[in-house]
């Protein structure tokens, strides 16, 4: 096994035992990037100082920080001081941030090394990475297919072992859906659990940063580090972080009551989800079918709220203080800005934005009731596996349709995992394990347990 293929936990053990150096580990990742990224196009900008940084760590020695010496990739909408940040949008082509996102800062403070910035849908507007102003990332399992998005670059980088872990962000499925399509683990913490400070805003009321990893255990480790209250983000929760990556073991599913929303069992993925359900049942969990609001309605709610917030969040990109002017905006951003501005204008606000918020409250209430009776629910992440290149261009609502099964959880600010649970025609499928707000530890324990029972997360694409 090459060093770049290690999980975070394995690599930390190896570094601690001095089996290899930080430079060797970082070099293994750089070699892999050089070997495969011409084909996959996961990275937009590489950190050209990483070997110097690695050398410095080797010289000063392992100080026991939880991510000491671990190379990672981060989505290009996280601001990284001194390292170009574009959010895959030409408007920000020349933008070098003067400050860093809280998430990035915490990772660096924990000793991690940034390999570079990964591709995404421009401004995170999409679920394919195909709407990047710098061209699509390709799926490592089959380069004729999309990696999903918007965190497609980070998902592909993890799947292709170009890094030990990746950071993404999701507004509605942008971590979990590319994780599912690329066959890696993706975790969406509760809204407000991880700071949005320094993340180029998409839809402020649902944006949630999260890790893309090779295992759930790694996801727990990373989330523990990036989670917590941030004085720079008024929407972060002051609740203490209850994630403990060292106590994921010992979960046994006996007596757990699991919901299986009937409306979510759509598409060709549902067969593999029912296979996964058997794994839970054989361990003594009770899986009960439930009826939830048809996720189709969430599409309308999500689309309106997201377009409104997008139109407002993009208003600052006027080219006066940084970046290029508005002529650099590509089609999708203009489309969303126009729709949002329309929905917020006088006479339409009540009809669209206000009504959408009312339905959003209904969705939140429905989940509150669900989690009074059930520990979590299981569903597909996406109705099927990755779609072929070009698929996003023929459907104006591509993202919303691909994310339909995770949008309700995003709209309600829940926490959820995507774990690999099978393969259809050579492309991976993701299982959704979703729980109540701030139930991160429970969901991570269950996901970890599932990965102890199954081997799907160990499957690797042949590059």
């Amino acid at each position, binding site marked *: 096994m090459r060093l770049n293929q290690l999980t975070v936990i394995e690599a930390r053990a190896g570094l601690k035992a001095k089996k290899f150096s930080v430079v060797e580990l970082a070099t293994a990742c750089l070699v892999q990037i050089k070997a495969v990224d011409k084909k996959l196009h996961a990275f937009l900008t590489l950190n050209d100082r990483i070997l110097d940084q690695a050398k410095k760590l080797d010289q000063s020695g392992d100080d026991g920080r939880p991510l000491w010496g671990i190379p990672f990739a981060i989505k290009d*909408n*996280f*601001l990284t001081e001194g390292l170009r*940040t574009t*959010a895959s949008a030409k408007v*920000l082509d020349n*933008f070098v*941030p*003067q*400050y860093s*996102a809280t998430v990035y800062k915490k990772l660096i403070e924990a000793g991690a090394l940034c390999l570079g910035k990964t591709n995404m849908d421009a401004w995170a507007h999409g679920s394919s990475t195909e709407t990047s102003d710098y061209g699509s990332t390709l799926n490592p399992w089959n380069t004729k297919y999309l990696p999903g998005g918007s965190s497609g670059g980070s998902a592909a980088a993890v799947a292709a072992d170009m890094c030990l872990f990746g950071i993404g962000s999701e507004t509605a499925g942008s971590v979990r859906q590319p994780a599912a399509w690329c066959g890696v683990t993706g975790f969406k913490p509760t809204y407000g659990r991880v700071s*949005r*400070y*320094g*993340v*180029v*805003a998409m*839809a*402020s*009321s649902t944006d949630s940063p999260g890790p893309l990893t090779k295992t759930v255990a790694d996801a727990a480790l990373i989330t523990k580090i990036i989670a917590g209250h941030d*004085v*720079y*983000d*008024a*929407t972060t929760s002051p609740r203490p972080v209850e994630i403990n990556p060292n106590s994921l073991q010992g979960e046994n599913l006996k007596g757990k009551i699991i919901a299986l929303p009937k409306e979510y069992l759509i598409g060709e993925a549902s067969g593999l989800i029912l296979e996964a359900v058997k794994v839970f049942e054989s361990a003594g969990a009770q899986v009960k079918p439930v009826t939830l609001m048809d996720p189709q309605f969430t599409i309308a709610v999500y689309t309106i709220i997201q377009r*409104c*917030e997008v*139109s*407002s969040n*993009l*208003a*600052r*990109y*006027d080219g*006066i*203080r*940084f970046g290029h002017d508005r002529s650099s905006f590509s089609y999708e951003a203009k489309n969303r800005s126009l729709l949002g*501005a329309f929905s*917020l*204008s*006088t006479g339409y*606000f009540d009809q669209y*934005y206000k009504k959408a918020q009312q339905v959003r409250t209904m969705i939140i209430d429905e989940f509150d009731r669900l989690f009074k009776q059930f520990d979590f629910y299981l569903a597909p992440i996406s109705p099927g596996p990755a779609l072929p290149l070009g698929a996003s261009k023929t459907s104006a609502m591509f993202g919303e349709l691909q994310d339909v099964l995770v949008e309700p959880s995003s709209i309600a600010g829940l926490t959820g995992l995507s774990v690999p649970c099978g393969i259809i025609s050579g492309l991976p499928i993701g299982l959704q394990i979703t729980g109540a707000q701030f139930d991160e530890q429970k969901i991570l324990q269950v996901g970890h347990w599932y990965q102890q029972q199954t081997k799907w997360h160990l499957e690797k694409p042949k590059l």
Partner: protein
Amino acid sequence: MKLQPVIGLEIHVELKTKTGMFCGCSADHFGKAPNTNTCPVCLGLPGALPVPNHQAIDWAIMIGLALDCRVNLESSFDRKHYFYPDLPKGYQISQYDDPFCQAGKLSLASGKIIRINRVHLEEDTAKMQHQVIDGQKMTLVDFNRSGVPLVEIVTEPDIASGEEAKEFLKKLRDIIRSLGVSDCDMEKGSMRLEPNISWSESPEKLNNYKVEIKNLNSFRFAQQGIDFELKRQKELLDQGKTPVQETRGYNPQKRATFSQRVKETSADYRYFPDPDIPPIVLTREYVENLRTKLPQLPEALANEMVNKFHLSLSTAQLLSKDQLKLAYFNQYKNQVEPLELANLIVNKKIDLDQPPPAKAASRAVDPNIIDQVLKENADAVAKYRTGKTSVIGFLVGQVMRLTGGKVDPKQVQDKLLKALQVRNLQG
């Protein structure tokens, strides 16, 4: 249909909090080198997020309480969208549906009540400077002011003249100053006025136009501008014309308003609740606790000083609305007889950085007595002029005799010397 002047006021007041409305930058921006007081938040950089300043919220609510407003226990910040280079995010964080305070009032000396529509909190914008650099016209933006807490006070259109507007504004300024939350300095822009003026049937039945005046940088100009505008509009209406709905500036030299911008349609600001800031939820106890922090307001305080210390109403009013003078008065009112102390502060304008002069010194030397002594002792004055400066002691003695020794000899000597110098020059 008889029309009457109908005037509403929008007043912006910058709070003197330590830090900005939503960031940690200093709120004290005046006179600082351009763009030296900025951060990702007030520059509107990508990814920056606003975190509300609770001191500013408390102070906005205190202004509302002082104006007899109802305080909303649930309020929110909203985004108000418009494009202007001084607005880095493309929207201003303000309050729309649920401001902190609503439905207040302030009464004028005549007993007339001016209703307050709302008191809300928002962020100030950057400042634009139009300059010619290397022969090219340019607009520069200074973001030091961007994000400074700004309270907006909106009245109902209850004001009927420039005079009433001026009285209202002075009273409002005195109240806000007494709270210690803003300097309300018109020259520095920490208080800004925008009257909306029309001739209408009544404040409830407004005409189909209104004119807003901007850039009024004193109460006097506000009064003059309003009165000019009323006259201008009346003349048009008398000719059967409707004044254009527009924003006008004021030229103090010409004492006239002039057209600046015609508003054909009302702007659509596309307000919606700012998703970056959770709603502000207050308890009744919290608001009542803020109410206990309100000082006695200037009007009540002046009345009390008239009754308690027998000050004249005008002296009491001057003292009650000037925080520095009032603090000085309170500090020394047990050491110096209050009536005399008030007189020293208001009429003699003594140095407030020094303690009051000693009791004997506190009696001023009557300039008439100085004159009288100089006239009656012409020979001594003549000796002084020939260089016999020691005669000054004799002259001081004469003054002391005439005043019964109740004045400070040092002060007498100073006054005599000054008078002699003047006479020297004249001679």
